[in-house]
């Protein structure tokens, strides 16, 4: 620039024409608000991962139950409490056995497909033995403090054994022989459906209520908010419990009960947003143009508050999942045999020592889903309002 000036170039003293000057410009890049938001969201690896996980969970819940080929309520008592991973022992003649920790013996195929139970022929309880016969051979099931072993007729352990996935029931079965996988996926459908519907209703009711309260101001606002605050004074779980005791169990009932209590916080949030925007000049300009109050709320106030509303809605999904799970867990939610993750947790508690997978699976499902939505909500919050970062 200046310091490079050494008079070595030719200076053209001709006056500049107006067109060459290009004085009136706008900023170059046209980036709309949402494009900017998406860009910031994409940078957040955790949020992107969460979107992926949520998509997987949604797909699995939506289509999974149809693909497993089993119904969530069919019971196969013989095959109850089957874990997802089983140890197959193969005898000399190629017969595969599966020894259940409950001291039952099953016939199986090598890949892990359990076919039927083998009933003992006789028992010698003093020696801690059960005796089985199959295909002309005798087998002894010996149980002791060290463990349960299946021995062949010579009282020797079977030659081969390996641990494979249960092919028949990929995630095992529960205490009355229902397929855990199908129940888990179907339960996901129920839990997620409840969570989404509750969130959408919360959105609609809360936004309308908060919007009207915030915009009206004065005594209307004071009255409407006092109602909200009084209702919020009692924890919502208590309301839900009372309502469910009155309504009885059922998906529809739990939906209603949760919707009745969950819109309160959203209404407060929306009211706050509307209050802060209400005196902005573009709202005044709309009033000067004669726009009616409802249109001002819908056309101007809400689109400009949508950031915090979306974040709040996203973060209330995991809360709804947890609430539904809790209610079903204590027996006041969805009615069995319809599964939900809470019901599965309830059923799995009893077998926590012997078949821990029965409680682990729904717990992991709940945790994973809640984590994913929480991370997504955090990511959305950062993306929608960069001022909150750092």
């Amino acid at each position: 620039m200046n310091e490079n000036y050494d008079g070595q170039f030719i200076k053209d003293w001709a006056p500049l024409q107006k067109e060459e000057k290009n004085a009136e410009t706008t900023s170059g890049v046209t980036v709309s608000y949402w494009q900017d938001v998406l860009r910031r969201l994409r940078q957040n690896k955790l949020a992107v991962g969460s979107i992926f996980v949520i998509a997987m969970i949604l797909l699995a819940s939506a289509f999974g139950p149809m693909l497993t080929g089993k119904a969530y309520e069919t019971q196969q008592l013989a095959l109850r409490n089957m874990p997802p991973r089983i140890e197959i022992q193969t005898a000399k003649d190629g017969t595969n056995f599966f020894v259940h920790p409950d001291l039952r013996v099953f016939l199986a195929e090598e890949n892990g497909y359990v076919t039927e139970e083998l009933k003992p022929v006789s028992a010698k309880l003093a020696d801690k033995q059960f005796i089985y016969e199959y295909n002309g051979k005798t087998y002894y099931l010996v149980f002791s403090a060290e463990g349960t072993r299946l021995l062949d007729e010579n009282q020797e352990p079977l030659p081969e054994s390996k641990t494979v996935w249960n092919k028949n029931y990929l995630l095992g079965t529960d205490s009355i022989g229902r397929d855990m996988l199908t129940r888990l996926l179907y339960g996901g459908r129920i839990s997620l459906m409840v969570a989404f519907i509750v969130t959408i209703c919360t959105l609609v009711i809360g936004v309308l209520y908060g919007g009207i309260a915030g915009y009206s101001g004065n005594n209307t606002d004071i009255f409407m908010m006092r109602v909200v605050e009084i209702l919020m004074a009692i924890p919502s779980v208590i309301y839900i419990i009372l309502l469910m005791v009155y309504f009885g169990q059922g998906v529809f009932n739990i939906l209603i009960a949760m919707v009745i209590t969950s819109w309160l916080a959203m209404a407060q949030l929306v009211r706050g947003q509307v209050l802060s925007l209400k005196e902005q000049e573009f709202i005044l300009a709309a009033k000067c143009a004669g726009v009616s109050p409802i249109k001002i709320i819908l056309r101007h106030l809400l689109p400009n508050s949508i950031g915090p509303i979306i974040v709040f809605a996203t973060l209330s999904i995991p809360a709804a999942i947890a609430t539904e799970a809790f209610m079903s867990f204590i027996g006041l939610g969805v009615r069995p045999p319809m599964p939900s993750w809470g019901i599965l947790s309830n059923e799995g508690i009893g077998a926590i020592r012997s078949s821990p997978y029965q409680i682990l699976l729904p717990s992991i499902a709940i945790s994973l889903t809640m984590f994913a939505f929480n991370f997504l909500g955090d990511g959305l919050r950062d993306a929608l309002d960069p001022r909150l970062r750092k």
Partner: protein
Amino acid sequence: MSAEKLLEVNHLRTSFFTFTGEVQAVRNISFSLMHGEIVGIVGESGSGKSVACLSVIRLLQDPGKIVGGEILFNGEDVLGMSKVELRKLRNNQIGMVFQEPMTSLNPTIRVGTQIVERIQSFNKGISKKQAREKAEKLLEIVKIPEARRQLDAYPWEMSGGMRQRVMFAIAIACDPKLLIADEPTTALDVTIQNQILKLIRNLRHETNASIILITHDLGVVAETCERVIVMYGGMIMEEGLVDEIFYETAHPYTIGLKKSIPDINNFGGDRLFSIAGSPPSLLDPPKGCPFCARCDKAMQVCLEHCPPYFQLSETHRSMCWLLDPEMPEQLGKGGP
């Protein structure tokens, strides 16, 4: 030579690295400040005046970075200082006053406590009682009535003008060599602004600090400053004594600024003079003179090459091709 200069800035360049690209906020400015003088930096939004002063005391926030140049404060290299030395510099030798007094003061802490905090930051040994006495004296210097009682006031109990006086009190607490005031009166009413400008003039006599006054208002500059620097598009367009800038103006931008202000003495039925267009984009700065696109005397050379500084007197320089002695006579007098 350098011992007389309090501040020397050479070829300072500062940019903001955003996702859309590098915004060159300050593009190669050089100026110096002597002890005990008031210099005004005039410019509009986007001219780089605030960024320049923040760079000088290295208070830039991400994504801003000083990209090049040299800053000497009392002969010491500021850019090479460690964090500890910098803090010592800012604590003991420099005071800053910003535009919005409400956000500069902590609303939950009493005013007196905030001043005492400042005093204790550079004078570790002082007792609380002595610090409080000093705080009261400071409030008296800035002409706050009932100083002792106001020590216990909260910022929100005070008006905008009084808060700004408190900011000045905090700024001069350490008896700084340099006081930077970034648009201190822009948010204030005219009568209050008048009071604050009077305060600034008095402070100079009472404390012997050098003052940099950043503003967009030429009237403020005319009343308060001895020297003026005019910035535009990240560069210094013209620099000189206040009389030279106002009466021997040597740059089309400065002339345009002066003409844009309606003269309260005259009554025009005609249009106000206005400079067409808007400030240039600093993302993709023009390679020639930054003011070229809006200048009514622009020439081809202005578009292609950025002009050097032409010295009109020992204290007066301007960056404009119209001052080039090589310019042909028929284009008008050798000047804007």
